[in-house]
């Protein structure tokens, strides 16, 4: 037999073997608060990530679009390269990557 002191109720009660501790209103309130806190944390982290991903993605999108637009201008006029006969798609990929290199901001942005 276990005696479970309950200061909130100002009394002691007998707790059966293996019964465990009942959750009091404070624990429920605490549990809700934890869930709310977790939600707030997730919401805050998502907002913070969005705030940085959105502008960086916008910049990357411009670079990729510019490179892709240039590659598409050339595409139909390119002769297949002998060196890439087994993988002809490489020609377009390498040209696109070359354009991407061109559009990456260089160190003059910090001069």
């Amino acid at each position: 037999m276990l005696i479970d002191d309950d200061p909130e109720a100002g009394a002691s009660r007998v707790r059966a073997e293996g019964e465990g501790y009942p959750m009091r209103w404070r624990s429920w309130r605490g549990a809700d608060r934890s869930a709310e806190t977790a939600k707030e944390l997730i919401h805050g982290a998502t907002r913070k990530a969005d705030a940085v991903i959105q502008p960086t993605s916008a910049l990357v999108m411009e670079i990729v679009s510019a490179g892709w637009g240039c590659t598409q201008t050339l595409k139909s006029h390119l002769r297949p390269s002998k060196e890439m006969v087994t993988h002809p798609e490489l020609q377009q990929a390498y040209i696109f990557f070359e354009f991407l290199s061109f559009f990456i901001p260089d160190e003059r942005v910090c001069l």
Partner: protein
Amino acid sequence: MSVFAFKLKLSPQQYLRIKEVILLMIVTPQVETFFGNWPDKTEISDQLHKSLESADATFGEAGDKSWETLTANILKFEGSQSSDVEMAAVRDLITTGLGKALADLHPDKFERLIKTASTAIETYERDGSSLLELLRQYQG
């Protein structure tokens, strides 16, 4: 991109940070797009990363001649059996394509995008968070 005369004054750290973020956001998606069914994409990812990382050396240092450098690099990928006339046509198309791209990507707009992204990265990392770490975790 060295054809624009940038008025931005990012610190070298800010520049390196934004450049690395751009590379991380470009390399994996583009390698997936072009080499999605290749068994091992690590080598091609590393090559593309190095190539983009050294763009400064290739185009930045070329200054006003960066356009010519780009044209010469692209012509290397053109079929070697192409005639001089075809090569000249490709050369003209590069100029046309670049002209259109640069008109769309106006210097002021490009600068504004860089500045906004740089400020956003700084704000994000102010509490010790790392955007590079976040991107690596997301991609890994």
